[in-house]
């Protein structure tokens, strides 16, 4: 198993590099660029606007820009041998005339330097670290909610096929799948926040100087966004689980177990569930990267300070360092998610051996 995981991780490196190349090309091919937006002020002299483009290196050929993102502007030397010469950044006077150069300071991805956000001017890595926790908290809780409610509902719907419970859970699943997240979120805010005043309308902590003081403060702020994000999971997982359980229930070994006189609960929840869960394991892998991408709207509506909204805004603004960092992060999480899925598959299904 260990060797398998190691091999998969090594194989992932070219995959992730490929993702970054493609993302970089797509992003650079998009019309426009951040330099104009950064200097969109009639009082900024025209030459300084041109200088900004040059200083940021956006006038260089795309492959040069990509390699610079990868290797940085600082030279790379190993045992006195220069492997990468780096880049000297042009220096301009206040009239926008180039007056010299200075050594670049960014280390590139190879040195785990993601650069600085063009718009917020803060290190990208700091901004990602600051927000990753909130996204994981929201996404993971929603996923747990989805699994803990969706799976039992799916099993019960399957074993009570055609009953009122089955029909109503299927209708609700379709409904929650179809309801747009932004609408559901706004409705929940209006009903539980504005009209009933029962729950906070957003953010992670109360809007007081002290912020979160008790556990209840944190939990109460999680309720609405988690429910908004979790309903989709409940709907999807209950339907998957229902179908999967129905498949298993029709198999011979279940009939054998029932014929042996085992109680229904044991047949359903022990013998049937384990095998019915195998397809669910394939959902869990892709679910992990979707924690990052799927929460954009929920995070926006509930003012949740996570990565989703930050990534979305970075793409709109063409904040290249931020976009590339998020792409890299998503690539790594996706690869790890699928790897986890494969491992889970092997753990649940004894017929599968990894090697």
């Amino acid at each position, binding site marked *: 198993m260990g060797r398998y995981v190691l091999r998969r991780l090594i194989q992932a490196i070219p995959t992730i590099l490929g993702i970054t190349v493609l993302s970089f090309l797509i992003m650079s091919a*998009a*019309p*426009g660029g*951040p330099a*104009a*937006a*950064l*200097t*969109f002020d*009639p*009082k*900024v*002299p*025209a*030459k*300084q*606007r*041109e200088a*900004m483009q040059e200083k940021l290196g956006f006038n260089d050929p795309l492959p040069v820009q990509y390699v610079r993102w990868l290797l940085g502007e600082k030279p790379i030397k190993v045992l006195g041998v220069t492997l990468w010469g780096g880049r000297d950044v042009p*220096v*301009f006077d*206040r009239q926008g005339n180039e007056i010299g150069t200075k050594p670049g300071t960014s280390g590139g991805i190879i040195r785990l330097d993601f650069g*600085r*956000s063009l*718009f*917020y*001017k*803060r290190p990208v890595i700091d*901004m990602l670290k*600051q*927000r990753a926790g*909130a996204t994981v908290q929201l996404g993971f809780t929603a996923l747990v909610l989805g699994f803990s409610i969706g799976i039992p509902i799916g099993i019960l719907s399957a074993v009570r096929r055609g009953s009122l419970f089955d029909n109503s859970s299927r209708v609700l699943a379709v409904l929650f799948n179809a309801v747009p997240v932004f609408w559901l979120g*706004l409705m929940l*805010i*209006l009903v539980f*926040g*504005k009209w009933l*005043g029962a729950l*906070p*309308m*957003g*953010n*992670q*902590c109360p*809007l*007081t*100087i002290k*912020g979160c003081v008790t556990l209840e403060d944190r939990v109460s702020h999680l309720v609405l966004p988690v429910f908004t994000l979790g309903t989709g999971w409940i709907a999807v997982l209950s339907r998957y689980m229902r179908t999967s359980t129905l498949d298993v229930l029709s198999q011979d070994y279940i009939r054998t177990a029932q014929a042996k006189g085992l109680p229904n609960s044991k047949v359903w929840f022990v013998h049937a569930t384990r095998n019915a869960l195998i397809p669910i394991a394939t959902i869990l892998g892709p679910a992990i990267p979707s924690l990052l991408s799927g929460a954009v709207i929920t995070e*926006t*509506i*509930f*003012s*949740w*300070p996570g990565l989703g*909204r*930050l990534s979305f*805004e970075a793409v*709109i*603004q*063409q904040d290249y360092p931020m976009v590339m960092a998020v792409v890299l992060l998503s690539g790594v999480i996706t690869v790890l998610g699928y790897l986890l899925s494969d491992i889970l598959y092997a753990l649940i299904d004894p017929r599968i051996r990894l090697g």
Partner: protein
Amino acid sequence: MKRTTIFVIVILATILAPMTVFAQEPGSGGPIIEGNGGTSIGPINDLRCSGTDCRAVTQWLAVGFLGVDPVTQYFAPNIEGAMVKDWTVSEDGMTYTFNLVDNLVWSDGEPVDGWDYLFTYYAYKHADEFESPYGYTVDDIDTVEVSEDGYTVTVKFLSASCGVLSDAAKNVVPSHVFGWTPEIGESFDWASLIEHPYEVTPDVSGGPFVFESMDSERVVLLTNENYYKTVIPEGFLYVTVPDQVVMAERFIAGELNVIDNPQAAKREEIRNNPNLQSYSYTAGLWDYLSLNFANPDNPMDGFEKDADGNPVLDENGLPIPVPQDPHPLFGDVRVRRAIQLAIDLDEIMEKAVLGEGTVMPSFLSVSSWAFDADLAPIARDVDAAKALLAEAGWTDTDGDGILDKDGVKFSFELLTNEGNTRRGQIAELVQQHLAQVGIEVQVSAIDFNQLLDIGDAQTFDAIILGWRNSYPDDPDWTGLFTTDGDIVGSGFNSMSYSNPEVDRLMKAANNVPGCKPEDRAPLYWELQRILQDDQAYVWLFNQNGFYAANKSIENWSPQPNNLFWQAETWKIAK
């Protein structure tokens, strides 16, 4: 006896009532809670902050050098909280001597003085070294000198331009925090400002609040007990609320207690809510429709240049215009005027901003001190528009409902930025209105950065975008309407408008000796008339600014462009 007792009680009450106000302890009121419509917050260092998000925080921490009169919205002496008490100007108008107040201290007890101003000036001079976009703001400053006691600052400018006060007006940061001393002067490691802790934990303040903490969703500031006057609110909370609809709902529900410019659709509800108070004013935000005067297939710079690419100037120091290849549709002023006449601005304003705006006759806001009150906006007149188009040779010869001339149909593409519903609505209404006079318009909403690039490249037919006036109000729009701004790739006069009289007047208005508003205003009145006559833009409207606060805030007294006027006196129920 009874009468005497009542008299004494009345006297005592009269004396004691105000004393209860004076006895208000610092930080005894509740906090000010405002939403941040962005996603994150940039550097909380005024030297590097370039967005409204970080500016919303630094405004409480840095000290303004020059004060702004809330009524005229222009620089004025003796404004409380500002460093400058008063100033004198040399005869040639190039040297200003500023006398500073001596009652301001930083929150750590160090005095706020001219040395801090000098450090701030030097920093801007070296702005490129720490990735600040504001180096150009000190371009017109030659030298800054500080008296030995630190309370007189002499600024010598390179010109007598009236914009120099804006150049001198800086938010000052505490030099001692950066380890700077006057002896170090300009030979400071300016690049070190990028990584300086002040960037994220600016724990020394000269404003009413001091920095307490910042995380991914909020910035918390607390009462500055060393402020020169009592600060009643216990702090300022700046909380990320990226969705505008949700922000308005959270304000109405009382979670936020102030709001700046909620969406137009929510303003009526806020006005009618008995728990809220509101304030409207003509804001410095205005949308415009820019028609390209020059052929978009042949963009060229608008003035003669020397071998180094610098403009060749005439004897008056003005650029020499180069004749442009005119736009096949908009090169004719009659066509541009017809478009203005065909547009129903009342309907546009009603639908795009629910009437929350003011029609503009020309390039200045109604609220500007330089606005020409006698200049009326151009009213809609479809018949006059049709007549002008016919006079310019545009008629519907083939009966398809679209005007044509020499076999060319009057059809063009109108660009605006996607995601902006207001501008999208304006574009659609312009399309409908122009269809009524036989002009076909294809509306395209594209990515904002792409739109800016197309504008810079001057390859567009027509664009709807907007400007925000500077604050304090400066009516100088050199670069936007002057020939020297017509530079392909980077100039803001992207429509290639050129009128030597405008170049002359814009320069003259910005160089009036003494720079008194009453002396400058008549020149701007003339400019407004010329730009209206030339249809430099198709003029649309100013948006109304709108502030609101929870009624639990006492002493709330906003001014135009200043939601937090005298916020230190606000009394907010805890």
